[in-house]
């Protein structure tokens, strides 16, 4: 006689019995949709399609966020109207600490303090602090999530996962890793949460560490694209190499297994406008809620550090190390500090430094990459604490520091060898 609970086999036997009596499988013909689905996962046909899809993703992103909103309207709004207006009506004026904090810190030119003429140089809470999230990042995030929702709902993502499966297996990850990675390109926070379906702690640890180090978020990408569009190709290449390379190393040194995951590949579906809009709204509003306070806070902290002289002190102390190891000037300390809170703000500050003309192209490149990899933003950091146990968390931090030092140094070295550093 059977005992309760049933064993696994008994349960399946029962199910077979039941389904024999109730389910009828009719003749099934391959449809055009199935044929297309097949083609998109076979490498020979799937890779060109993937290139086309990613091309579409990226060009939409650039034209929507960059050409139309940021360059088309926002830069004008902020630099030609908002900033001059604040500069004219705000009490205090250049040199006043309160004014510097909120509106415009100004910068030295031939020994004289001059006013900024754009919202990246000014470093004020009301200027840079608003321009970064609303002038640049919001549009980038919108564009990203719009495309992302489309890909999700059509059902393309799992197919991309199947395609990259072979490559990712070499570094001990499963093709599914593409899903958290892609999500993290919007914002690292949901990216880290999406590692939950990974089965072993090792996979999760690797994934979380790689994500938080090598995957820049949409906010950051948006502002990088705005500042250094011509370097984007190189930046992504560097990050991908780092991701794969350190993945390979981590896979070798972290104990544990990376078992197969059975992932269902769902059928292609027609996306529904309603669902896309609602997802866009959920994700964008979530983003604003997290991002805006941190950007403003970051502006304030950095501003205060400048005013109190703490920043200059740090720049002098850390400058020689930054210069000798990474080949970037001490001034990058300010963005690096801001980067603890928000990466987009940090890159924006770097932009301010760039416009003052104190960095070479290679230094700009190195510092942008450094900003991506040196530390996850505060929100991601907090989430890592929650998702990992203590040992793993410390492990993540340790590998993070190691990766930054090694990789940052390596980039500098390559630069020296190529004669560009």
């Amino acid at each position, binding site marked *: *006689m*059977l005992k*309760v*609970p*049933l*064993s*696994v*086999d*008994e*349960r*399946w*036997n*029962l*199910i*077979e*019995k*039941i*389904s024999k*009596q*109730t*389910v*009828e*499988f*009719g*003749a*099934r013909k391959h449809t055009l949709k199935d044929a297309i689905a097949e083609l998109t996962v076979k490498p020979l046909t799937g890779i060109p399609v993937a290139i086309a899809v990613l091309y579409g993703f990226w060009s939409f992103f650039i034209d929507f966020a960059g050409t139309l909103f940021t360059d088309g309207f926002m830069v004008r709004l902020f630099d030609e109207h908002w900033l001059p207006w604040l500069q004219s009506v705000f009490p205090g004026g250049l040199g006043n600490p309160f004014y510097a904090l909120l509106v415009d810190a100004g910068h030295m030119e031939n020994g004289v303090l001059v006013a900024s003429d754009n919202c990246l140089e000014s470093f004020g809470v009301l200027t840079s602090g608003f321009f970064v999230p609303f002038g640049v990042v919001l549009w980038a995030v919108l564009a990203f999530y719009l495309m992302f*929702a489309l890909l*999700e*709902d*059509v*059902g393309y*993502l*799992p197919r991309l996962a199947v395609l990259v499966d072979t490559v990712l297996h070499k570094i001990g990850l499963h093709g*599914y890793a593409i*899903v958290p990675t892609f999500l993290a390109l919007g914002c690292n926070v949901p990216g880290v*949460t*999406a590692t*939950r*379906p*990974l*089965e072993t702690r090792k996979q*999760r640890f690797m994934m979380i560490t790689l994500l938080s180090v090598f995957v820049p978020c949409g906010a950051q990408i948006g502002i990088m694209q705005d500042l250094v569009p011509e370097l984007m190709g190189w930046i992504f290449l560097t990050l991908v190499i780092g991701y794969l390379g350190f993945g390979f190393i981590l896979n070798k040194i972290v104990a544990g297994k990376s078992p197969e995951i059975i*992932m*269902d590949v*769902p*059928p292609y*579906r027609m996306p*529904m406008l309603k*669902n896309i809009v*609602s*997802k866009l*709204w*959920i*994700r964008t509003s979530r983003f604003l809620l997290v991002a805006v306070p941190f950007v403003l806070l970051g502006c304030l902290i950095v501003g205060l550090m400048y005013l109190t002289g703490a920043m200059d002190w740090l720049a002098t102390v850390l400058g020689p190390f930054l210069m000798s190891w990474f080949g970037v000037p001490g001034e990058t300390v300010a963005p690096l500090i801001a980067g603890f809170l928000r990466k987009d703000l940090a890159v924006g500050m770097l932009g301010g430094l760039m416009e003052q003309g104190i960095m070479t192209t290679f230094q700009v490149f190195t510092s942008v990459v450094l900003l991506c990899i040196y530390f996850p933003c505060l929100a991601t950091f907090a989430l890592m604490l929650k998702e990992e146990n203590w040992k793993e968390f410390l492990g993540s931090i340790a590998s993070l520091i190691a990766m930054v030092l090694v990789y940052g140094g390596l980039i500098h070295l390559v630069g020296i060898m190529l004669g560009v550093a």
Partner: protein
Amino acid sequence: MGHPNVGKSVFFNRLTGAKVLESNYPGTTVDFTKGWMRFGGEDVELIDVPGAFSLEPKDRAEEVAVKILEENRDSVVICVLDASKVERGLYLALEIIERGYPVVVALNMWDVAEDKNIRIDAEKLERILGVPVVPTIAISGEGFKELVSKIKEAAPVKIEKIIENAGGVESAAVSG
């Protein structure tokens, strides 16, 4: 409860008017969300959980799902099945029934099953399982009224009863 990517979140959103992310790939929902739905003149709580293949959790997302189930001993479970893959879904449903939960089974993606030429005798399934079984199409809302009206009928069923209805089953030792 149900497997990943069977439409649980669409159900949840429709029933509660809440908004959780729905996407066409497994692993979108990795945490639970609570919401309220009107049911027979009162508000009842509904929880959207991550997908799970079985009640023996293999990963963090499944852990969350099982934990929620265990924390809510006296709730009705809406088991969402992918009608085009009933057998797999039934496994989880049976597990939940065995643990003594009152269950309503939703045969979701009825449209997909039809496209694939799979026909399911929902009434017979209902008779065998002894719990309400309702075909649904979550994205268009078909079958939802019936589903909600049948939540009241959900009652715990003994697995022996199901085995009897199915015409007995050999124990694993015999069948290997």
